[in-house]
């Protein structure tokens, strides 16, 4: 191309200074790539000089700030020995971090061992929970547990966040125990939920529990009218 000589090519171009190169790279393309590289370098330089790294974009004079607070919770349920479940529940946000570990024995589902740890308390408001975890031993996962746990762990002299963490652990054990039955119900009598209209592009599950099983579940007094799935059945 006039004005922008080729870097090198093997396809009969007039410039043979770099004839060993296997590809034809026209001069105009080289020029464009060089311009792009310079612009990229300049923008990186500006980014490095930015005194407010959290500020990534400014629009109409108003500064738009990216995510500035996060809460992450993870609860895992695992059978560590025959009949013995270990549930670990963790929470982490900008102000607080805590972990609750419960060992729960089947079939009574009573807590055999509990560990509570406050790993970060930015506000310094949490009381010392030493000895409190022992009070959890013997409490059963089941009806009434919410009131008991809040009574033992929460309140003015306790930690409401740790109480909620323990309750989350106990509830997830219930979910973990329910999952095999629900899986079986889906495998044996599941119904396709692919809608003819307005469905998502990607289905995370394309089969749900069949109507008959849903009615059976809704007949349980604890489930009846508990959510839209079990209402008016």
């Amino acid at each position, binding site marked *: 191309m006039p004005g922008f000589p080729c870097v090198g090519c093997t396809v009969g171009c007039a410039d043979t200074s770099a004839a060993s190169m296997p590809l034809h790279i026209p001069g105009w393309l080289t020029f464009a790539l060089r311009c792009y590289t310079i612009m990229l370098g300049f923008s990186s330089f500006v980014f490095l000089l930015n005194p407010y790294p959290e500020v990534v974009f400014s629009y109409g004079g*108003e500064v*738009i*700030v*990216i*995510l*500035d*607070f*996060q*809460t*992450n*919770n*993870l*609860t*895992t*349920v*695992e*059978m560590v020995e025959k009949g013995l*479940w270990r549930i670990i529940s963790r929470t982490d*946000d*900008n*102000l*607080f971090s805590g972990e609750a570990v419960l060992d729960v024995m089947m079939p009574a589902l009573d807590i055999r061992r509990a560990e509570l740890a406050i790993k970060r*308390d*930015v*506000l*310094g*408001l*949490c*009381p010392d929970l030493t000895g409190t975890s022992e009070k959890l031993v013997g409490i059963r996962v089941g009806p009434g547990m919410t009131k008991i746990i809040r009574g033992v762990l929460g309140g003015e002299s306790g*930690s*409401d*966040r740790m109480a*909620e963490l323990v309750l*989350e652990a106990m509830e*997830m*054990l219930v*979910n*973990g125990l*329910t*999952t095999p039955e*629900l899986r079986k119900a*889906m495998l044996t009598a599941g*119904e396709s*939920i692919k809608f003819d209209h307005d469905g*998502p592009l990607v289905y*995370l*599950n394309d089969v*749900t*529990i069949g109507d008959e099983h*849903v009615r059976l579940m809704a007949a349980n007094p604890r489930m009846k*009218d*508990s*959510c*839209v*799935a079990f*209402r008016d059945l």
Partner: protein
Amino acid sequence: MLAYSRMKSIGVQKQGEAHRVISGVLEDELYAMQCEMVVNWPELCIERVQTRMKRFTTKRCPLAQQVFQNAEGWKIDGELEGRIKKELGRAGCRHMAILMVDCCRSLVRAELGRGLAAALEQEPGLNRAEFAANFVSQYPGLKNFIRLK
């Protein structure tokens, strides 16, 4: 091997002086869902709600999405948790209701955290517990909702 695992993640961001956007996701073996909200601060009024049921157990579960829009116009206060769980959880989805409560609680904690960070820059030796107490006294309706400890 794990029998069950639930992850919940919530993010809060500021959009202008008077708006906060909260996005929450929940994922486990049985359920996957997301809740997004726009809240006016300091009015503490929920202006927009968008929920999506992504993994669920019954074909009626997605009907819950419409129910949660009823929270538009509600105010974040000490009654909110019970109201969301009773009015939206029972008519919609209990798991989504808990996620929504967690989103609102994260928003309040984010406001406190943002204010604390700014105050600590001015006064590194600031009494943090006192700062938290002052924050709560500005929003008495949040006292029983925020759960700081």
